[in-house]
């Protein structure tokens, strides 16, 4: 440590405290970063990364419960510890000392409330069959982009009932502005929905099937949504750059599309059922009138 440095130095990856430990010290970051993570069945989940001036470990001081998460240094990090007994004695003399701690706790509660609402929405979307088709498509697309393959643009196109044209149901990037409709066999997406085979096109402009629109793209992946051997839509991920995607990317996206297709088919079935019920009720009420 250098001459003018206060606190204790932790090196990268060093554990400051572990989830479940008893805690009687609170911490203030003097320099560097601290990762707060929680253990779960699928591994450690990072809750938040804190930086200089941030306070952490305050909860165990006030609720006397074991540490709710672990704190680990991210790079060389210097931390000042605040002893519980001394802090409480200061609070007793001047309660306004904890205003900043309350502010920290309040912003943590706000962040958690926001995260909780988002998670609840995601969970509802996944479990509840009453959600609409566009929401499901957006959710699938977001999952593909965040967890499968990163891409600049993406869209989901589906064949609508009784029609042989693909319509965009959800999109991100520049593709979000596109109002493209393709017939089966038309363009790369139309071809994929016709053949049912996933395609990787790394030089799009050289592909004769490519239908030039307002969007400039260099490479494209297109995977089908199939159910019981029948193709009912496609998932497109594209980039301005050529040779952006690999064969492994395509395999991963294709596997993902098999599960996504089941979810989409469920929503479509629920939607059909809802329409059918509405029709029956409409007819029943007409009969009632007569």
């Amino acid at each position, binding site marked *: *440590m*250098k*001459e*003018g*440095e*206060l*606190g*204790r130095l932790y090196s990268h990856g060093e554990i400051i405290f572990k989830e479940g430990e008893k805690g009687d010290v*609170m911490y*203030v970051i*003097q*320099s560097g970063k601290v990762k707060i993570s929680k253990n779960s069945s699928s591994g450690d989940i990072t809750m938040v990364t804190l930086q*200089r*001036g941030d*306070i952490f470990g305050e909860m165990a001081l006030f609720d006397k419960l074991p540490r709710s998460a672990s704190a680990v240094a991210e790079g060389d990090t210097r931390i*000042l*510890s*605040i*002893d519980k007994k*001394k*802090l409480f004695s*200061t609070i007793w*003399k*001047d309660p*306004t*000392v*904890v*205003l*900043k*701690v309350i502010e920290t706790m309040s912003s943590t509660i706000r962040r958690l409330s926001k995260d909780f609402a988002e998670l609840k929405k995601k969970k509802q979307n996944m479990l509840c069959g009453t959600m609409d088709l566009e929401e499901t498509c957006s959710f699938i697309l977001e999952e593909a982009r965040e967890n499968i393959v990163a891409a600049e643009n993406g869209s989901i196109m589906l064949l609508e009932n009784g029609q042989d044209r693909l319509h965009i149901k959800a999109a991100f990037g520049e593709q979000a502005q596109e109002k493209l409709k393709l017939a089966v066999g038309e363009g790369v997406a139309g071809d994929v929905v016709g053949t049912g085979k996933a395609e990787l096109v790394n030089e799009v402009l050289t592909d004769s099937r490519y239908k030039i629109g307002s969007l400039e793209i260099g490479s494209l992946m297109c995977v089908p949504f199939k159910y019981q051997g029948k193709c009912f839509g496609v998932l497109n991920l594209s980039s301005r750059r050529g040779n952006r995607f690999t064969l492994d990317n395509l395999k991963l996206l294709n596997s993902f599309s098999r599960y996504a297709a089941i979810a989409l088919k469920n929503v479509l079935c629920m939607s059909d059922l809802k329409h059918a019920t509405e029709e029956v009720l409409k007819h029943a009420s007409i009969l009632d009138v007569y």
Partner: protein
Amino acid sequence: MLSHGGRSKSDFAAYVSKQALADSSPYALEDGSKIAVVGGGPTGSFFSIFALKLAKMIDKELNITIYDPKNFSKDGPAGCNKCAGIISELLVQTLAVEGINLPDSVVWKGINSYQLHTTKGSVSIATPSFENTIAAVYRGGGPKGIIGEHKESFDDFLLGQAVKEGAAHISVKIEGIEYKNGKPVLFSQGGEIEQADLVVGAVGVNSAKTGIFPDMGFGYEEPRTVKAAIAELSFDEEIITEHFGNSVHLFLLPIKSLKFAAMIPKETYVTLCILGHDLNANSVKDFLDYPVVREVLPKSLSYKFRCRCLPKMNVKAPKIPYADRVVMCGDAGSTRLFKDGLGAAYIMGKAAANTAVLHGVSKQDFQEHYYPVYKNIIVDNQFGSYLYFLADLYKNYGLLTRWMLQIVQEEQSDPEDPKRLSSVLWNMFTGNERFKNIFATAVSLPMRFDLWKAFAKTLVRRR
């Protein structure tokens, strides 16, 4: 019928009606109220920072102006506030909790232990947390003729924080304050510069400005002071690392005129601070020639004097530190005896800020909400006097000095030991604890069997 916290409903009703009266009082601060802070040292800055923070929380907008002609970034006496420059572990931690983190550029050295030197030997006392938790700082830009500008003055940093919070700093010397229509008016260079709703006297005892407050006629008298001796010595950095490390070196020597002395390392400098009676220009040289000091600082080590001074220290607080729309804080009010002046500046600056923002600025408001904190320090200093008397006994009588060292050495070598005497000494000289609490621990010590065992050992060794 009692509600939670043991207070009756009628108590609560009385509190609510009192608060409602306070809000409508002519002495309550309102949006746009003007506060003049005379003195831009730590007390003035702490007052401004906390008054502005608290006012924002309750949606009140205050206009605070800090008047101080001094430029704290200057080296030597011009920018210095003449102090040892130690920020206690408790203050470092409390400020961090409040959101004021001392940057590396302000801290000249992080301190993690105290080395206690006596004629009977030396012993090291480490911080309980084994961290660098004490900050050695310079109040001004550093010793006279300092080379390089890589470090910041603590007072300048704090004043900057107050300005960031919304205070204005005007480099003007206030020469007089008079009441006009019940409100104080500040004068400078013969002219009126501001009429304020509140004037905070945050002037130091070494400042020429204290005289303006006794002249206001509300009964305030300047605090009683004694002289300390401070010197800045410069060394090669390797010598500081080897001989001082990250420790404050504390000397308890059997010299009647000396209470204690401390050497505080700060990069390539060491601040020597001597406290006692009848200190004069020769006190520093006499101290440095003392054999125990020579062991820490052998004659072969070359050092240079950069600057020295004989600053005044507040040892008795004024009886009347407030009036309607005027409050005196920090060194101009009550401060801690012989230590932790910065800790006292924080406590008193904040107590004045809380009173003014939450209650009002009348004499009655300060009597009810500020004076208890002020009085606490005065009462606590009484216990401090007893403790310094005890420390005098231990340093002046060889047998007691040996006994004290024996116990501390045993405590420090045993990780499981509760380290009672070590913590008494640690708290006594670091400002970590109130004198009253240290006194309570100190008087309970002789009841313990192991202390008497150590005493017997000391007697045997002596024979």
